[in-house]
């Protein structure tokens, strides 16, 4: 398969770009932030997004979706990266759908059509410590009657404050660090014993800390097999990582574009600053990094869609590379904008903040480089 978007993917991109660029430019995000909007995203836009088929992008056609794959998810995420539009696309349309596709027939029939309709929002609750370490999951999932009782706390639950359904990783057996013994649960955030605290993040996007205090869940709420959630979780996380990497490509591209424009308009010492060779070389280097990253991310998404055994390594590469490239892009962006880049009035700082969050989200560059080394046995 060529490492290019095909015709349909290009149309999808144009369509996403049209909507996101027109309706939700960075000023839309700024407005939500300044208003300290309680939801953190526009429900109206999400409705339109759903009508356009984006909420159900990955939902199988049998359940009312488009049945598309990781590449298409990446296409949309990249456009989101350009304007930082807050939306439940990642949490619900990517992570939620990817998880629920592994559910029982009943679970799929229950949830997937509602997601495609834009009527149901989900959130994936994995992280517990300061860093993304899914195997370190410690949340207790003790058998209790016919079901389980959950105890523990989750952090960095993206869109956790608006979710209608939580997908929660618990430990039903084994010890933190072990792969066996993980189970995924579908949990109603209104269930007794759950408390959700929205966390105000540096990027003004949405996340929550959620504590579970003797939360009872039935056996029906298990997603996949008990104790065997590790593989399912990997597959869900990997598509999420690819999607976040795609967002970082869009973000890097946007920052870079704005920076190159600034180089062509800002004068210092009687010259356009883009005439200074030191900046030219740094810009050319950054350009190359972004193009290299773009290829790595597309490749990883294609391999996921192919079900290739090399997909996990490719995702580790993509997420690691996208993280370092986005970090470089925003650092160069702020520095080359000089003092103006430091002001809240300029948008460039938003990208720096979002890039930092995207780094941590689903594992930072260090985590994924380490994963690559493990996969290659060294």
């Amino acid at each position: 398969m060529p490492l290019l978007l095909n015709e349909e993917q290009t149309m999808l991109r144009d369509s996403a770009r049209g909507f996101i660029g027109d309706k939700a430019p960075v000023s839309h995000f700024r407005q939500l932030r300044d208003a300290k909007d309680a939801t953190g995203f526009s429900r109206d836009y999400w409705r339109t997004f759903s009508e356009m088929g984006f909420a159900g992008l990955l939902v199988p056609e049998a359940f009312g979706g488009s049945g598309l794959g990781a590449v298409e998810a990446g296409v949309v995420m990249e456009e989101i990266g350009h304007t930082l539009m807050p939306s439940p696309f990642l949490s619900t349309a990517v992570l939620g759908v990817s998880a629920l596709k592994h559910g029982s027939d009943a679970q799929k029939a229950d949830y997937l059509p509602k997601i495609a309709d834009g009527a149901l929002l989900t959130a994936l609750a994995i992280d517990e410590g300061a860093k993304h370490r899914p195997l370190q999951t410690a949340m207790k999932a003790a058998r209790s009657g016919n079901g389980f009782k959950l105890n523990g706390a989750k952090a960095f639950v993206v869109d956790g404050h608006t979710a209608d359904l939580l997908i929660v990783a618990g430990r039903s057996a084994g010890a933190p660090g072990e792969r066996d013994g993980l189970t995924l649960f579908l949990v109603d955030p209104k269930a007794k014993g759950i408390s959700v605290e929205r966390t105000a993040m540096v990027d003004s996007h949405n996340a929550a800390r959620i504590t579970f205090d003797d939360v009872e869940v039935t056996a029906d709420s298990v997603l996949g097999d008990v104790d065997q959630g590790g593989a399912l979780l990997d597959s869900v996380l990997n598509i999420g990582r690819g999607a976040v990497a795609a967002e970082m490509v869009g973000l890097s591209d946007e920052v870079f574009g704005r920076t190159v424009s600034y180089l062509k308009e800002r004068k210092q010492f009687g010259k356009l600053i883009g005439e200074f060779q030191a900046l030219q070389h740094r810009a050319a280097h950054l350009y190359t990094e972004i193009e290299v990253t773009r290829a790595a991310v597309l490749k990883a998404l294609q391999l996921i869609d192919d079900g290739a055994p090399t997909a996990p390594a490719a995702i580790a590469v993509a997420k690691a590379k996208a993280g370092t490239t986005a970090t470089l892009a925003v650092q160069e962006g702020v520095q080359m904008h000089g003092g103006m880049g430091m002001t809240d009035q300029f948008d460039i700082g938003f990208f720096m903040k979002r890039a930092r969050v995207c780094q941590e989200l689903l594992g930072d560059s260090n985590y994924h480089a380490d994963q690559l080394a493990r996969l290659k046995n060294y």
Partner: protein
Amino acid sequence: MLGIPRTKRMETLMSDLDQFRSETRAWLEANCPPEMRKPMSSDEDTFWGGRNAKYSSEPQRLWFERMRDKGWTVPHWPKEYGGGGLDGEQTKILRQEMAAISARLPLVSFGISMLGPALLKYGTDAQKQEHLPKIAAGLIRWCQGYSEPNAGSDLASLQTRAESDGDDYLITGQKIWTSYANYADWIFCLVRTDASGKKHDGISFILFDMTSKGVSTKPILLISGKSPFCETFFDNVRVPKSHVLGTVNRGWDVAKYLLQHERAMISGMGERGAGRPLGQIAVDSIGADAQGRLDDAMLRGQIASFEVDEAALACAAERAVDLAKAGQAHPAFSSAMKYYGTELNKRRHEILMSSGGIDALEWESQRSHEGARPRAWLRTKANSIEGGTSEVMLGIVAKRILDLPGA
């Protein structure tokens, strides 16, 4: 050639200094209130002086007044201007003894750190008599009017104009990045007194009262949140010509002299080597493996590499001071240090963010001290811009130290 006997003449000198040290130690012990022996943890802990100065606590007032009375708000200034009259070695000893008990600075001000040295070098007797004692006594708080929206790195292209009107100038224009302009009593400011020649000529360095008619300020919000920076506007502000510091149209000399002080100050901004090692801060949030190593091998490596660089920079800073004392310092070396120190400080805060992980992403909660870590991180991004960008610093090194053509 080897085996030359070590020189002995230092010895007598040392005993004088030893005595100064023990006296100083005793005085500090007796006079520095216990509350003033803790690291500053908020802006409130800094006493800035000025017409509207407020003490945040009684010990702060006591400590300031005792130090002021000894001339030790500006220990190295001449006594006639309210200073302590100490020489270089004595000043160093005072700093060391203060550091030893973690004594806070009694007074922080741009008058001391920036304007003072320029006044001492370029001021007329009248100007020195007028301004220095008030700075030493914390009576007047100063701000600096250098940058303009279209004169950032290219500072000399500034446009704020001072038009001659009899014995006065009428000043009109806009400054940006004026720290604490909204709290300052006076400003030292670069203005264009002659627009006909080259851009570096025709600039004058002038002092005036911020309550003058036509001065207004507006705080700037940064990506890290609230900031001390302001936009400052001058609309036909009348200033006597006698307020020019140095020669009219030669203000660039004064500015350059002062910038070197500023750069040296900024290059010292990182928390080099002080406090808890970065790796242990990371262990606090990420944990350690069975061998006690940070449980993130990649990050551990980055931290170790950083700490090598940071420790080396601390040595270079120490050496820079020693070179200066020995009269061997290259005047442009502060630019190299400013570049290196600020880039390192940015790296430090990238590492702190990575070490904090998810917890370091919170922006407003009490748990996160209102996002102290991410705000500090974002704030450091300005380090390599303010006081001369890294690019300008490298250009200065290339030109003035390496003598590269066309630099």
